[in-house]
């Protein structure tokens, strides 16, 4: 690989300590062996069903996990290992989050003011905001709107504008598409493609494979808190024979545009994970070895896969 990833997550694990009966403490591991790489100018779609650890990954990168979370593994930014202090410095500045909806805005504060709070250059706050509003076709008066007054389209643009007022190199979008109609989805996706084309790295967290395939360069498939495969978007073309993991293949077959066959079974809960490969209880190719050994991530055909028998 000649290109250096701008953001690299290696073997991330997140567990939450909980107190159950009395003072009995239990560590619930919700993310195990999560690996992700982000490159400048590229869109990585992180795809997985609910509970696969997508949002937690975003929070871990930004260092905003709750206090009772314990993390392991490494996160590198520009080749440098991130400490919690680094994360605090980078978030909002170099790494920006685009939340899912305006519910993530302070309901009692005008949007213009909320954007200005995080602009460090105090003298030019007004200019910066009017510039970005102009760029996204938002009227000046929208600055004085409260979040509940924004229409769907405006809200989307405001949230985008918020992420772009800083000189961010990495944009993380958490579920940007649910609840939107086809036309709006396409607009959102185009926005992200444009952002990536300016040289930023975009990580789009979604459970909508089809939306992801439209614009992403790479797709990371999350399952039960682990990365099963990182594939190029092109690998999904045709019958998907270029895909590496049985789960990805099954997902691809489940798409309405393909065979439309649902994948049988459900994702295991964090407290009842299989001992070996996390997908072993649903995998058609499972062997005895899969039940005892957790596969490592290996590189196959310019992609990565976590399966003992992947080809």
């Amino acid at each position, binding site marked *: 690989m000649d290109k250096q990833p701008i953001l690299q997550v290696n073997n991330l694990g997140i567990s939450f300590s909980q107190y159950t009966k009395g003072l009995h403490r239990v560590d619930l591991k919700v993310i195990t062996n999560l690996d992700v790489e982000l490159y400048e100018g590229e869109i990585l779609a992180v795809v997985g069903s609910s509970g696969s650890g997508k949002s937690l990954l975003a*929070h871990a990168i*930004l260092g*905003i996990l709750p206090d009772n979370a314990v993390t392991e593994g490494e996160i590198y930014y520009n080749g440098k290992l991130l400490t919690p202090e680094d994360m*605090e*410095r980078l*978030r*909002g*500045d170099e790494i*920006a*989050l685009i*939340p899912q909806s305006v*519910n*993530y*805005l*302070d*309901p*009692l*504060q005008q949007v213009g003011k909320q954007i200005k*709070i*995080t602009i460090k250059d105090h003298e030019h706050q007004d200019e910066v905001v009017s510039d970005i509003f102009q760029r996204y076709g938002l009227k000046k008066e929208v600055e004085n709107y*409260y979040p*509940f*007054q924004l229409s769907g389209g405006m809200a989307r643009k405001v949230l985008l504008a*918020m992420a772009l007022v*800083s000189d961010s190199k990495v944009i993380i979008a958490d579920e940007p598409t649910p609840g939107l109609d086809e036309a709006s989805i396409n607009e959102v996706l185009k926005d992200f493609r444009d952002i990536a084309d300016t040289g930023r790295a975009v990580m789009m967290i979604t459970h909508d494979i089809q939306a992801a395939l439209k614009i992403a360069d790479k797709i990371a498939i999350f399952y039960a808190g682990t990365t099963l495969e990182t594939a190029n978007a092109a690998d999904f073309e045709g019958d998907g024979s270029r895909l590496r993991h049985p789960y990805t293949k099954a997902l691809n077959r489940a798409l309405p545009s393909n065979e439309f066959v649902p994948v049988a079974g459900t994702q295991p809960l964090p407290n009842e994970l299989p001992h070996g490969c996390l997908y072993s209880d649903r995998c058609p190719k499972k062997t005895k070895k899969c039940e005892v050994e957790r596969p490592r991530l290996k590189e196959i055909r310019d992609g990565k896969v976590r399966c003992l028998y992947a080809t």
Partner: protein
Amino acid sequence: MEKRSGLGIFLTKRLIKLVTLLVAICIVTFVLLELSPIDPVTAYVGASTKVGAEQRALIAEHWGLNKPPIERFMAWFTSIIRGDWGTSMIYRRPVLEVIGQKFLSSLALMAVAWTLSGVLGFVLGIIAGVYEGKAVDKVIRAYCHILISTPSFWLGILFIMLFAVELGWFPVAISVPIGVLAEDVSLADRLSHLILPSLTLSLIGISNICLHTRQKVVDILSSDFVLFAKARGESKRSIIHNHVIKNASLPAITLQFLSFSELFGGAVFVEQVFSYPGLGQATVQSGLRGDLPLLMGIVIISLIFVYVGNMTADLLYMVIDPRIKEGQMA
């Protein structure tokens, strides 16, 4: 234009509610007093045996007590509407004059207590919420729970024993020094008489506001928008300053204005303990001695007082939370 008419409708509705409430409260108070075992004449002349049965009957006739209750109520009610609030039996002065004077001294007491409890409660609540689970939070919460379970009159007595009798920092009772002409009473005198009772009264309100604010702060800090503010690089300080205070002030303000009734009720106890000559004491006196005109007058005034408090809360809500404004106007 549209907005103004919306506010007009809101105020008109509230006014109608107030009037119906007033009529209902007047009837209830009258019936209660009618049913009470206190004979106004006996209460008036006291235990004195010099007043014979004939004289008693004369007094009763003079006050119109021999007429049937409904007739008396109607007579009182129609004169109230005409603006004549009658004469207090025990003070022998017009009811409005008595209330006006008493209310003024009570107002000073209540205003100080109200401000103190609001500010202290809110600040303590914010601190406790921000440091949820830490030692500061535990101390503040324990303090609130102790206060909330302490009767105000007992606390008042405790304060008198400690600060007035033992330490001698403040006068024991009454609102002015004894043996000093009214025009010679200085502001400092009045203030030193005000401190203990208003402190006692304010302590009742603190816990309520503090505990509610604390919970609200905890909720806000675990909300999505605070998480996002963090993700955008806002420091804890900035989050508290920019997001927590305003969002937490909503319930605090409502509670504070809704507490007008508790404040008034508390004032009755506190004034009694400190022999502070305010409206609270006048209420007790008029009730114990069957002074119907004065009691009814106080009921009306206090009802308006509490009602205005609640209405102010609603109006302020609209100012602070734009979502509510839109909802009310629509």
